[in-house]
């Protein structure tokens, strides 16, 4: 196990380096100069500015410098926010997104799992249809429509929570988190339901029942644990996606988060920031996937984490 984890960590670094390389060269294919004011500068200025940002050098040299700085944890300097380091930029924008993402994830999965279990245990009853319907509604309404409905009713009409902005403590985070939670909620409810129904019908549960295990014990000890495997496969990437994917919700609630920053850096061709954000998301995602793979082993001992044909 220790050897496996060590090997995976080495792989994770290789993956990151590959992603950094890929994103570096992808940036070069994007149309437009990274220097926003480029067409206002004269040739002399262009030469000087290019030198300042180091984009006058041949691409391989630029790449080497970028990777060297990356090794030191330096993501470079933003082209749009003059003279500001990407590290600073990301650090400041990350916090609201992380808070929203974490709240949405925790709330969404817990409620989703409960709904899914309820539906599975009361298969083909009102509870099943009710929670299934809620889950369908959750995935049927795009998060931005749901977000604006929440904003319109709860904030604008009833004045219960702020309409937007990030300056009202925890209150500011409630509505956006709720809007974001719909995805994980619906997804976990459906997966848990499907899996648990299957598991509940399987032989070993029948055996467990025959041996006199009570419903609660069956639900949690046997069925739930098995149902969790496919859920974790989807939820891992989803968690990472929540932080990136919240950009529309962040825009609706005027929250200075990372998703919103990401889109505007793409729109303004801010290469260093795009690469920095890409790398950060990638690192996050890779770690999540790693954890998921380890969890497989913990949840289902029959899966040998080392893989191998057999």
């Amino acid at each position, binding site marked *: 196990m220790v050897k496996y984890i060590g090997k995976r960590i080495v792989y994770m670094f290789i993956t990151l380096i590959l992603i950094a390389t890929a994103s570096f060269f992808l940036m070069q294919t994007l149309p437009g100069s990274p220097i926003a004011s480029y067409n206002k500068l004269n040739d002399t200025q262009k030469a000087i500015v290019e030198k300042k940002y180091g984009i006058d050098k041949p691409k391989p040299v630029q790449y080497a410098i970028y990777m060297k700085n990356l090794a030191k944890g330096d993501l470079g300097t933003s082209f749009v926010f003059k003279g500001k380091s990407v590290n*600073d930029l990301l650090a400041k924008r990350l916090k609201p997104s992380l808070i929203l993402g974490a709240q949405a994830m925790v709330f969404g999965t817990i409620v989703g799992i409960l709904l899914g279990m309820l539906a599975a245990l009361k298969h083909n009853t009102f509870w099943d249809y009710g929670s299934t319907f809620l889950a369908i509604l959750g995935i049927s309404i795009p998060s931005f429509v749901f977000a604006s409905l929440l904003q319109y009713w709860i904030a604008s009409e009833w004045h219960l929570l702020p309409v937007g902005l990030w300056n009202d403590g925890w209150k500011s985070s409630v509505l956006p988190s709720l809007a974001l939670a719909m995805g994980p909620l619906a997804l976990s409810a459906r997966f848990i339901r499907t899996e648990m129904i299957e598991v509940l019908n399987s032989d070993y549960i029948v055996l467990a029942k025959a041996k006199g295990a009570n419903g609660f014990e069956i639900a949690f000890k046997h069925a739930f644990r098995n149902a969790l495997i496919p859920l974790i496969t989807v939820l891992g990437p989803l968690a990472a996606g929540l932080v990136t994917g919240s950009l529309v919700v962040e825009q609706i609630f005027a929250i200075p988060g990372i998703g919103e920053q990401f889109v505007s850096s*793409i729109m303004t061709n801010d290469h260093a920031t795009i690469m920095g954000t890409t790398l950060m998301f990638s690192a996050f995602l890779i770690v999540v996937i790693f954890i998921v793979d380890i969890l497989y082993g913990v949840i289902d001992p029959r899966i040998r984490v080392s893989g191998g044909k057999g």
Partner: protein
Amino acid sequence: MKSNKWLLLMALTLVLSMFLAACGGSKDEDKPAADGDDKDKDAATEEPEEKQHAKDEEGEPDAEQVLHLAESAAIPSVDSSIVEDAVGFNVLNNINEGLYRLNQENIAEPAMAAEEAEVSEDGLTYTFKLRDAMWADETPVTADDFVYAWQRAIDPATGSPYGPFMMSGVVENATAISEEKMEVSELGVKAIDEKTFEVKLERPVPYFLSLMSFGTFYPLKEEFVASKGDAFATNSDNLLSNGPFVLTKWDGTGDSWTYVKNENYWDAENVKLTEINVNVVKDSATAIKLYQDGKLDRAGVSGDLAMQYRDDEEAVIQPETSVFYFKFNQERDGKETPLANENIRKAIAKSFEKEDMVDVVLANGSLAANFLVPTNFAFDENEKDFRELSGNHLEYNVEEAQDHWKKGLEELGVESLDLEILGGDTELSKKMDEYFKSQLEGNLEGLSISLKEVPFSVRLDLDGNQDYDIQVSGWGPDFQDPISFLDLFVTDGTNNLMSYSNPEYDKLIEDSKGELALKPEERYEAFAKAEKILLDEDAAIAPIYQRGLIFLHKPHFKGLVDHPFGADYSFKWAYMSGK
């Protein structure tokens, strides 16, 4: 299995009711207002009356002078040499001050300068006497601060987008310095003594004083800038203000910042606001909800929302001086495009209805444009609008358009054309492009239009490489003179980028800068002639509209001044009354 059917029914009803709730609820609210409908119907069918600006009304200032505003983007930079975007110039205009400032009537009046500048007979030397003004750190603003700032802006090493752009061909030696052919110290600026600043020009520039209110020409205290090094202007601690307000709580990249009154400002007694809180809100619908919730005192209304709010009691239409037009690219990939044909250009320019477009598609107070130089922008000696002098060009006329079209196709020897319209990717530009497509295809037989909608940065790139057929482009002036627009289309001009060239046009523009520079009347005539050549004769571009914007503006927020060029707003005279 009966329940399954009911589940489906329930699902449908719930979804339905959910969305119906949104409209049902709001309908109820409107019932009390349903009386006196007739008047409103008329107002809606006809042109909306020009709204009186709420800010014009008088009123006693309140005890608490705190303003809450939203911006549509974060501040990229407030380094006066580097600033290039609307948000940055706006901040700069309110925390710093140049020799001149646009007053409440939008006329440049002495600010850091104590009195009107002395201009030499030949119009080449300007001498400014500085007022006893202080920086926020209580040191005096001196002529050296101006010399330093101007030299810094022209120094190619600074990489200032506006320094060479504004100074080249205007201030002595600026062009050569920006190309590293001369030392920075040779720029035609001089501190005669601590309070006297002298500028030598390369040629007479009639609009020179209106440049003095532009951010790039603001003073910078060398000692302060040098002591901060690279950190200068990267956050509110590393800024030194000499204007009405001081910037605080700005971390350099954040989505919020605050202005507080600068007690060391020379005219501080006329500054009433003590605090202005600004948050970045990109979504217009959100800004409106915040406004209605009392969290903002003013909110921009954009896109489809404009139609809904333009008749709102608190809506204010703010005319702007940005003009939008089609650029017809005559050469793409080294080959002539069909748009090199004059008749084709004229046909397209005259084939779309502009009035309907501004009323229904834009619905935000924009004006249909049959001109390049906007209305209410440039005035001659007798205060007469340049537009009265120049008249209308390229008006909508389907018959003429179709005649031109037929002729053009014959000349090209083809029966149909496929052209691309390159436009922005905002909601409004997309809607507009769809309208153009339908109008052009409907009126010109055999034309088929494809639309390409890209982010601004990509559009600049395509523009730079002349990789488009027709582009929806726009220009907002940096100073108050028709040349700000007409200079764009001289042969090989930096913003021409469509291979348009007419020696006669070039000559007129050249003359306006040279021999006519000190003859205002003839100069304006030359401009009118140039505009006529550009539009009527050559149809090099096809004007579309002059932009207007709608804002929701709380009645208690008074005294805001919006400027037709340079920075958008001054908060100097703003105050809260009756909140």
